[in-house]
C-alpha cells in the first residue's frame, strides 16, 4: 500500500520575490520566517515522509466502522477547526498566485507535523487530481463538495484553483483541507459518540501547525475566518445519528425542532444541502463565538445527543414491544426491495438500507451482518461504484450496478 515516492525533495519555498502581489501591505515574509523555524526543531526531512498522490482508499472508513459509544444510534462524530494564516487574504478573495503560495506553506507545514506511528500522511494536490478521486474523497467524507469543485461561494476559483488535501491513512480519522473557504480546515472523525477524542486530535494538529505558522486571530472575534459565521473558536462539532424509529413513530419533527431550538443545525447524511434519506442526520453547532470549545462539547456530547439517542432507543423499544408487526413489515419490505430490485436510485437504496439497519439492530432481521449495510452506505455512492467497476457509468448504468451490488451483498447465499 505504501508508495515510496520521494515526496520531500522540493523543500524550498517557491520564488517569492518575483511574484506579483495583488494585495498591498501584506507581509508574507513574516510567515516565511516562521516556516524556517522548522530547522531549529529538527523536524525538517525527518519523521514519516508524506506520500504525494496515489490511489484513494476504497475500503471501509472510520465513520462506518459501527463501533464506539452509543453506536446503535450514533454513526460517527466529527470535529472541524477553521484556521487562517495571518497576513494573507482568505482563499475566496486571494489571487491564484496567493493561493499557490498559501498552499505551499500549508503543505510544508503539514509535512512537518508529527503523527502516530503506523500512520501516513497522503497529500492530494487537487489541481492535478482526477475527478473520480475528488469524488471518492468527498464520498468518504474527507472533504467537502465545495473543495472538490474548487469554486468558492463568491464565484471565484474553479477546478484548477490551487488547493489540497492531506489525509492521515490508513484510518482516515484526520484530514486537513488546504484553501477551502479558509486556509486550513482540520477535521477529525471517530466512530460512535466521541467528540472529545475528535477535539483532542484536532488540538494536537492545531498546536503542531501553530508551531510553524502564525494564525489570524483577533482579541474580540477569536480565530478569524473568511465567513463571519465561523469566527471565534472556528469549531464545528457534528454527530451523525440514525433515527429511523422516530421517523416511524412520527416523532422525528419534534426532535428536529428541539435541536434547532438549541441552536443546532440538522443536515442529511452527505452533508450540507443533502437530503436526509435513510433517516441519517448530522447534528452540529452553528454558534462559534462566545462559547468555548468545552461548552460546545458539553452541550452536544453530554446533553443534546444523549437525549436524542434516548428518544430513538425508546421509540425502538416501543416498536419492538407494542408494534412489532409494523416494525417487521417496514424492515422486511425494505430488505425485500433491496434483495429484489434491478434498478436502484441512491436515495431509494439509502432509505431501505436505513430501515434494514434498524431491523438488524432490533434483531428482527437475523441474516444480514451490520457491516454489510455500513459498507454499502459507502459503496452505493457513484464514485465508489465507478472505482470498483473500473469505468465511468451513466446514471442508468449506475442504477443497474447499484442494484446488482446491493443484491449481491445482501443475498441469502452470500454467507
Amino acid at each position, binding site marked *: 500500500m505504501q508508495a515510496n515516492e520521494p515526496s520531500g525533495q522540493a523543500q524550498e519555498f517557491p520564488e517569492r520575490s518575483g511574484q506579483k502581489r495583488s494585495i498591498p501591505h501584506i507581509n508574507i515574509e513574516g510567515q516565511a520566517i516562521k516556516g524556517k523555524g522548522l530547522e531549529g526543531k529538527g523536524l525538517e526531512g525527518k519523521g514519516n515522509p508524506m506520500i504525494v498522490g496515489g490511489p484513494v482508499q476504497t475500503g471501509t472508513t472510520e465513520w462506518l466502522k459501527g463501533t464506539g459509544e452509543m453506536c446503535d444510534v450514533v454513526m460517527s462524530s466529527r470535529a472541524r477547526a477553521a484556521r487562517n494564516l495571518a497576513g494573507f487574504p482568505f482563499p475566496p478573495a486571494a489571487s491564484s498566485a496567493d493561493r499557490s503560495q498559501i498552499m505551499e506553506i500549508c503543505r510544508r507545514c503539514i509535512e512537518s507535523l508529527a503523527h502516530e506511528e503506523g500512520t501516513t500522511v497522503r497529500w492530494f494536490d487537487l489541481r492535478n487530481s482526477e475527478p473520480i478521486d475528488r469524488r471518492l474523497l468527498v464520498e468518504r467524507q474527507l472533504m467537502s463538495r465545495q473543495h472538490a469543485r474548487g469554486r468558492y461561494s463568491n464565484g471565484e476559483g474553479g477546478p484548477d484553483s490551487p488547493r489540497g488535501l492531506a489525509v492521515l491513512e490508513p484510518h482516515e480519522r484526520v484530514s486537513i483541507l488546504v484553501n477551502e473557504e479558509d486556509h486550513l480546515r482540520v477535521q477529525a472523525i471517530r466512530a460512535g459518540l466521541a467528540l472529545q477524542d475528535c477535539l483532542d486530535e484536532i488540538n494536537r494538529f492545531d498546536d503542531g501547525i501553530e508551531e510553524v505558522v502564525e494564525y489570524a486571530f483577533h482579541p474580540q472575534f477569536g480565530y478569524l475566518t473568511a465567513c463571519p459565521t465561523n469566527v471565534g473558536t472556528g469549531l464545528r462539532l457534528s454527530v451523525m445519528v440514525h433515527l429511523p424509529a422516530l421517523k416511524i413513530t412520527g416523532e422525528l419533527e419534534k426532535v428536529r*425542532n428541539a435541536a434547532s431550538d438549541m441552536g443546532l443545525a440538522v443536515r442529511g447524511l452527505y452533508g450540507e444541502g443533502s437530503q436526509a434519506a435513510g433517516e441519517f442526520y448530522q447534528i452540529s453547532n452553528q454558534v462559534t463565538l*462566545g462559547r468555548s470549545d468545552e461548552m460546545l462539547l458539553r452541550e452536544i456530547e453530554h446533553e443534546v445527543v444523549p437525549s436524542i439517542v434516548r428518544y430513538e432507543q425508546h421509540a425502538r423499544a416501543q416498536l419492538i414491544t407494542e408494534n412489532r408487526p409494523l416494525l417487521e413489515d417496514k424492515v422486511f419490505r425494505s430488505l425485500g426491495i433491496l434483495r429484489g430490485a434491478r434498478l436502484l436510485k441512491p436515495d431509494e437504496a439509502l432509505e431501505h438500507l436505513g430501515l434494514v439497519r434498524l431491523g438488524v439492530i432490533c434483531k428482527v432481521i437475523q441474516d444480514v451482518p451490520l457491516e454489510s449495510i455500513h459498507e454499502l452506505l459507502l459503496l452505493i455512492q457513484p464514485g465508489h461504484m465507478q472505482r470498483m467497476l473500473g469505468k465511468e457509468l451513466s446514471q442508468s448504468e449506475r442504477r443497474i450496478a447499484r442494484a446488482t451490488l446491493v443484491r449481491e451483498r445482501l443475498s441469502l447465499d452470500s454467507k
Partner: protein
Amino acid sequence: MLCECQQRQATIHEVILQHGKKVERHLCEQCASLQGVSTDPHMPISQLISNYISGKNLSIPTVSDKDTPKSQSPKPGSTPPCPTCSMTYSKFKDTGLLGCPSCYTSFQKRLSPLIARAHDGGEQHIGKVPRRALASLGRADGAGLESLIGGASEREQRLGQVRDKLNHAVAHEDYERAAMLRDEMTRLASLPTSTPASGSASQIESRQDAPSPALEESS
C-alpha cells in the same frame, strides 16, 4: 379549548413574551408542528422554557431580542474599503465572505452587531487562544492581553450578564441550565488578568516548553 384552526382541541399552550407583551397561543398538535412549535413530550418542560428564554428559537421573537444590539445602519457606502485588501463592505454583504483578516478590524463597527446576531448574542471569543497571539499581546502591552481574556471591567460586565441569566434560570426552575451558568461564572471569575500565569495561558505555555511525546517519536 379549540385550536386556532377551530377544528381540534388545543393541546399545546404556548405563552411567550413578545416585545414585552404576553402572547398566548393555543394549538392542536398538528398546527403546532406545522408552525414549528416544539411539542416534544420527552423534552423536560424546564428545557423548553430555557430554550425560549435564551432566545434560541430564532423563528419566534422573544424577550431576549432586546438584548441583541441593533444594527446602527449607517448610510450605505459610508464604510471605506479595507485598506489591506480593498474589500468593500457592500461586496461582503453580497457574498458573505470577507477578504482578509484585516477586514475584521476595518469593518469592526458594522460587523459586530451582525456577528453577534449570527452567534446567538455571542460577542467575545471565549476558549482556545493561539499561543503566539497570547505571547505577542502579552509582550506588546498588558491591556491587549487583558482585553483578550477579558479585562477587569469587561469581565465584571460579562459576569453580570451571566448572573442575570442564572437568576432567570433559577426563577424558572431550570436547574440544568443554572448549573451550566454557575460553572461559567466560576470559570469567568477564575480567569487570569494581565499576566499569562494561570489557567488556559499557563497550559499553553507549558505545552510550548515540553515537546510532546508524539513529536519525539517521529524525529
